[in-house]
């Protein structure tokens, strides 16, 4: 088996975000890291919408990002710390819209290691130096400078190592133009490692250390080191230094040390200031639980600065420092607003706050005010003795605030993110859909959702109105060339034409010069200010002064097809003749003296738009009934001569020539594509050579069951093609590459561009007798998401064989269940405590739920109707019980009646795993599955993490034990057990009497159930330990699984052993066989192995397109959706692997990681080709493309076609 890995949806989790002027323009941009991918976002200052400029896979793991700007520069660069053991400086080149690697300096081994730098990055605010640090000991400082040609230079590294020091955080100090200084939070472990009494450990101090880079001596010195709070976790830079022009200080310099419950201002030889972090006064909040700051941002404005710090609950605090010159007078903190917990916060100069959420959707907020004059209580260091540092070892009294809905911020934009995907199913449930949908359980806590993902572009409808009859075509047109918007809508009916004018309202008009008594074939704004209508009996040329010049068709003939552009008109007559007209310089339409006889009825015609600055387009495409398409010259030298001919498989129904940019073919200029729609629903796309008019590089695609109609439209100021069949598709250019995506919209019969003041970039379409005006707002987003809100983190969900409901279990650790919370509140009320109901009733989606101690759980079972997209019912679990697994089981003891079994556990602790008792709850389905009735609860001794139906009974993985249960009157009855598993059973799958068991740490084992002796025996397992998270059976002997470290692999059992085990009736043979390597007697063989880079949470064997091949689809925790496609032939394997090999040398990773070692992070990659790498072939420069294609003995077009075919035929994407 050989697989091709293709990412359909790249990870959407944001691990870090930085802001800067990366393109060098005045506008600020944001670079976000998605763990294995870098993306440049550009927020639009006017609309507040965020658009993606570019996104690139880096084939490595990004651990840290920092922006810096050289002194006096106008452009920011990004520094990337990754697991490549290299420091990378990236520059965004706006011309080519790519990241360019300016510097790549190797300093250590690859991998996310303890003492290899890359975890933390800190830059000098003046852009003179950068420090890159490891988790322990190693810190390197690089000096950044310019050379004579103003190019960025980087020095060799200077070491600032400290042995046996664990580094919590580093930050660059703002010291103006003095020697660059860095601050680090370090703990030394050498003493506690030596002291058996544990005293040294208890007295271990966390040191705030300053490292100074002496630019004169070119070395780094430890300047200052002082103990600080032992629970400090984060440092924030405080502005400092003098302005060059004045003597005024920007700020006091130094750092904010964020500790548990406190913020301390700290600087060398300066007084410390300490304030408490205000906390919510929630009655259920544990007062002993510390509160830490997890994200921080400093913002400098003219003459002032402030900080926004975010606590782990999501509350933002505004921190200000009052200072006189370099002396701090007070440190103040107050509650600002509550936003989702962020991995990074970015403030833009234009007044926006970008919140890169650690889970769920990301947000862009706009500042309404800065919380300057509100009644929010402010806590100042001057309120406490000695500025809060009277006794640094004792905490300050708690400060409280009341959270409120957003007050200082408003949401400007939301970026959808699937992160985290915890479970998924691939099914075709929705009506009128011929491709399956992906249902994903996403999110964490109260912001969780169940999302339905459909392949296609989202459509926003703005108008939908009924028409008197059923039109067969629609056009819009301007009146003159220079009009900004369209003036008329022309509708063609079977026996007439209706003209509507677009103004304040849309109403019928009569005096336009258009013929209303006949249907229309084409409408065109022609020349400077004239209009043109083609109808079956002639061509009307309506001049600006309403005079009409009409060309009439000779008697007995009609026009069957027409195509027009601004200067040319071609019509085909029923006698299979072509008539060609061209506009002369006086604005007269002149007929070419000859007519061209085609010899076969013409079905479709198309000419391209007139190229800018030209008189005419030189080519005409004609589709004839004899299943051919001919390219005919319109050049004055050879007018109406046939240039080339292409045979088709069916009669054409539409042709459309369009000039579109596709960087994989031509990076600088649009390519002329001839799109041919056939009557059988197949679309051919060929490239028309502009020099010799030959058709090359044909790609085919099946669009739907109806004959195709093609329309040239404008989308976001770029030409695009709308292809209408039983589904509507849009062919467009996005980020310089061509895309072909269906629209998620009703079937359209005809469509055209529509441009009016309110909808400048719209489309107009007809569906039956309904006229619709719509937009396609999100190009590039190929998966449309619809979500259903959930209450807690979803864990798993399953389908029911008889109905279309989903049964989903949710559970949250460290959250009190509804019952426990109400009970506790009532108790507090009885004690006479004053309870602030407003705080208790805050919506958890925005504010989260109060954190409870470990071992507390809130959980429920939810029934969802995915078609209606709503929750049908919710069954909360009480008594600190949480659900971990579920299965629908047809118990044969009850005549095959379906039951829902939910595995739960009470008072569960995660590490080490323990519970007071596990339960198997057996439910009966009521109301056709819309409700559940609890039959009984069976106690078990451990947490049941996996359940599955098996031969009319239940197989349960209860902790380390694999058991089979049958249903009883009051309980489930244990029938057989196998306790040889190492840690915990997490996945189960079955075929026949074979059960495939995934162990949490010990990979996949093959077990068999032998009914005669009632034995459950493990007969084969893996020779490697694997931390399984998801698995599925590929066939009877083969299993595909994903592990916790981001690998997917396929294991296969030798078919001889399989037969041998199946032939053994009692299992006595297996029972007495000798184990190998302290495991089962047989081992499986590793067939394929690949490091995806995201933790695989589910894996399915599905077919993504109707009648397509089955593929393995997996979802990743960070929002990845990918597929593994089996190759069908050896030639394909050879071809694609060779291409991959070439790509590896051509396309070096942006973070400097070797692609092969990245894909073989833990185990060398085996029999899997990295499709994401291969697809970057389309972005290579033309010369490299042809060099590689030459090595492969193919043309560039053939290589691209093969890559596209691999993607389209297996995923439809």
């Amino acid at each position, binding site marked *: 088996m050989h697989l091709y890995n293709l990412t359909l949806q790249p990870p959407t*989790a944001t*691990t870090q975000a930085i802001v800067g002027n990366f393109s060098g323009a005045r506008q600020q941009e944001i670079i976000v890291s998605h*763990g294995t991918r870098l993306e440049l976002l550009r927020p639009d200052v006017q609309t507040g919408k965020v658009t993606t400029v570019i996104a690139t896979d880096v084939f490595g*793991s990004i*651990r840290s990002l920092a922006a810096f700007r050289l002194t006096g520069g106008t452009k920011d660069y990004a520094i990337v710390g990754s*697991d490549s053991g290299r420091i990378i400086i990236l520059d965004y080149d706006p011309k080519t819209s790519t990241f360019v690697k300016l510097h790549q300096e190797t300093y250590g081994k690859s991998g*996310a*290691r*303890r*003492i290899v730098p*890359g*975890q933390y990055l800190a830059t000098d605010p003046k852009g003179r130096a950068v420090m890159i640090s490891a*988790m*322990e*000991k190693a810190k390197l400082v690089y000096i950044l400078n310019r050379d004579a040609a103003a190019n960025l230079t980087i020095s060799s590294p200077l070491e600032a190592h400290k*042995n*046996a020091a*664990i580094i*919590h955080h580093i930050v660059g100090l703002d010291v103006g133009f003095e020697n660059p200084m860095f601050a680090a939070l370090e*703990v030394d*472990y050498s003493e*506690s*490692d030596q*002291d*058996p*009494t*544990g005293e040294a*450990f208890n007295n*271990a101090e966390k040191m705030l250390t300053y490292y100074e880079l002496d630019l004169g001596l070119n070395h780094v010195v430890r300047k200052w080191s002082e103990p600080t709070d032992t*629970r400090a*976790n984060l440092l924030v830079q405080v502005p400092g230094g003098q302005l060059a022009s004045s003597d005024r200080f920007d700020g006091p310099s130094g750092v904010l040390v964020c500790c548990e419950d406190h913020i301390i201002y700290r600087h060398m030889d300066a007084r410390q200031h300490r304030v408490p972090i205000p906390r919510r006064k929630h009655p259920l909040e544990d007062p002993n639980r510390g509160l*830490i700051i*997890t*994200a921080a941002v400093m913002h400098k404005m003219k003459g002032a600065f402030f900080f926004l710090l975010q606590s*782990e609950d999501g509350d933002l605090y505004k921190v200000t420092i009052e200072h006189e010159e370099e002396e701090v007078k007070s440190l103040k903190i107050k509650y600002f607003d509550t936003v989702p*917990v962020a*991995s990074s916060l970015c403030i833009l100069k234009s007044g926006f706050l970008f919140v890169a959420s*650690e*889970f769920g959707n990301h947000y862009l907020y706009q500042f309404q005010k800065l919380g300057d004059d509100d009644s929010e209580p402010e806590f100042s260091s001057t309120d406490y003795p000695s500025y809060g540092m009277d006794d640094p070892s004792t905490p300050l009294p708690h400060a409280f605030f009341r959270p409120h809905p957003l007050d200082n911020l408003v949401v400007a934009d939301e970026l959808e993110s699937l*992160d*985290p995907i*915890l479970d998924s199913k691939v099914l075709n449930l929705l009506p009128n859909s011929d491709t399956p949908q992906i249902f994903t359980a996403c999110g964490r*806590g109260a912001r969780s959702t169940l999302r339905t993902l459909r392949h296609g572009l989202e459509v926003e409808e703005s108008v939908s109105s009924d028409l008197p009859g059923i039109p067969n075509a629609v056009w819009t047109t301007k009146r003159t060339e220079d009009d900004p918007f369209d003036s008329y809508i022309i509708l063609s009916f079977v026996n007439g034409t209706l003209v509507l004018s677009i103004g304040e309202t849309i109403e019928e008009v009569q005096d336009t010069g258009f013929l209303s008594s006949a249907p229309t074939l084409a409408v065109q704004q022609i020349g400077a200010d004239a209009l043109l209508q083609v109808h079956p009996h002639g061509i009307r040329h309506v001049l600006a002064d309403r005079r009409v010049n009409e060309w009439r068709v000779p008697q007995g003939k009609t026009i069957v097809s027409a195509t027009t552009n601004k200067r040319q008109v071609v019509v085909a007559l029923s006698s299979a003749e072509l008539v060609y007209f061209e506009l002369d310089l006086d604005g007269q339409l002149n007929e070419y003296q000859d007519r061209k006889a085609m010899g076969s009825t013409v079905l479709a015609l198309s000419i391209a738009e007139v190229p800018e600055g030209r008189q005419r387009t030189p080519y005409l495409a004609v589709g004839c009934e004899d299943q051919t398409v001919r390219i005919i010259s319109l050049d004055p030298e050879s007018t109406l001569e046939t240039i080339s001919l292409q045979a088709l498989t069916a009669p054409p129904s539409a042709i459309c020539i369009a000039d579109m940019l596709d960087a994989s073919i031509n990076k600088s200029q649009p390519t002329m594509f001839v799109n041919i729609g056939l009557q059988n629903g197949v679309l051919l796309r060929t490239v028309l050579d502009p020099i010799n008019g030959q058709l090359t590089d044909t790609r085919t695609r099946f669009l739907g069951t109806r004959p195709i109609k093609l329309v040239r439209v404008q989308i976001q100021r770029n030409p695009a093609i709308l292809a209408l069949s039983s589904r509507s598709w849009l062919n467009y250019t996005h980020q310089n590459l061509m895309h072909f995506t269906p629209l998620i919209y009703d079937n359209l019969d005809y469509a055209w561009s529509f441009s009016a003041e309110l909808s400048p970039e719209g489309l107009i379409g007809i569906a039956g007798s309904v006229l619709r005006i719509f937009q396609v707002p999100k190009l590039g987003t190929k998966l449309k998401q619809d979500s259903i809100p959930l209450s807690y*983190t979803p864990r798993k969900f399953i389908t029911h064989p008889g109905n279309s409901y989903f049964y989903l279990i949710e559970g*949250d*650790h*460290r*959250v009190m269940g509804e019952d426990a919370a109400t009970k506790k509140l009532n108790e507090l009320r009885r004690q006479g405590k004053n309870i602030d109901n407003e705080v208790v009733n805050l919506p958890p989606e925005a504010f989260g739920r109060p*954190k409870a101690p*470990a071992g507390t759980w809130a959980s429920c079972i939810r029934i969802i109707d995915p078609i209606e997209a709503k929750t049908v019912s919710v069954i909360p679990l009480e008594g600190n019980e949480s659900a971990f697994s579920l299965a629908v089981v047809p118990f044969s003891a009850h005549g095959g009646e379906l039951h829902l079994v939910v595995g739960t556990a009470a008072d569960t602790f*995660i590490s080490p795993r323990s519970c007071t008792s596990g339960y198997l709850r057996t439910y009966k389905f009521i109301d056709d599955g819309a409700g559940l009735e609890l039959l009984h609860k069976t106690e078990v001794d451990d947490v049941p993490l996996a359940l599955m139906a098996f031969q009319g009974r239940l197989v349960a993985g209860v902790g380390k034990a694999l058991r089979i249960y049958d249903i009883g009157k009051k309980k489930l009855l244990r029938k057989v057990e196998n306790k040889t598993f190492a840690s915990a059973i997490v996945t189960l799958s079955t075929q026949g009497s074979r059960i495939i068991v995934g162990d949490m740490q010990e990979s996949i084992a093959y077990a068999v159930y032998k009914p005669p002796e009632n034995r459950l025996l493990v007969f084969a397992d893996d020779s490697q330990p694997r931390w399984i998270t998801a698995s599925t059976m590929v066939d009877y002997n083969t299993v595909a699984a994903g592990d*916790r*470290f*981001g690998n997917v692999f396929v294991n296969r059992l030798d078919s001889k052993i399989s037969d041998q085990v199946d032939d053994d009736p009692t299992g006595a043979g297996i029972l007495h066989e000798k184990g190998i390597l302290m495991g089962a007697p047989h081992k499986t063989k590793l067939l394929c192995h690949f490091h995806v*880079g*995201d*933790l695989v949470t589910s894996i399915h064997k599905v077919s993504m397109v109707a009648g397509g091949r089955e593929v393995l689809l997996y979802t*990743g*925790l*960070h929002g990845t959706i990918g597929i593994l496609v089996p190759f069908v032939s050896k030639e394909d394997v050879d071809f694609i692997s060779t291409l991959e090999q070439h790509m590896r040398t051509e396309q070096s990773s942006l973070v400097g990681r070797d692609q092969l070692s990245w894909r073989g992070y833990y185990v060398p990659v085996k029999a899997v080709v990295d499709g994401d790498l291969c697809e970057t072939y389309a972005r290579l420069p033309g010369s490299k493309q042809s060099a590689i294609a030459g090595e492969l003995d193919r043309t560039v077009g053939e290589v691209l076609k093969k890559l596209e075919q691999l993607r389209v035929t297996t995923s439809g994407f």
Partner: protein
Amino acid sequence: MSSELRYTANTQLEHLHARYTGTGHADLSKYDWLTHQHRDTLASIVGHPTLTSYLAIADGEAIGRVKFEMTERMLQPCGPPPRKDDD
């Protein structure tokens, strides 16, 4: 092994130990080995974004908190060292 060779081998080893924290040697105690293993593991978890997300979801904590507690635990992941017998 000649004494001379042992001498050079040792200096190299010492050099390696100074340079690469966590490198094992023949006299490594069980406690030291385990402590190194734990510190390596903790550092690796903090260094892999997917693993921190995974733990944060399982534990119901913020990612920032998980990273902080993991880093804190690196100070003494396996408790205090055992008492030495010879004194």
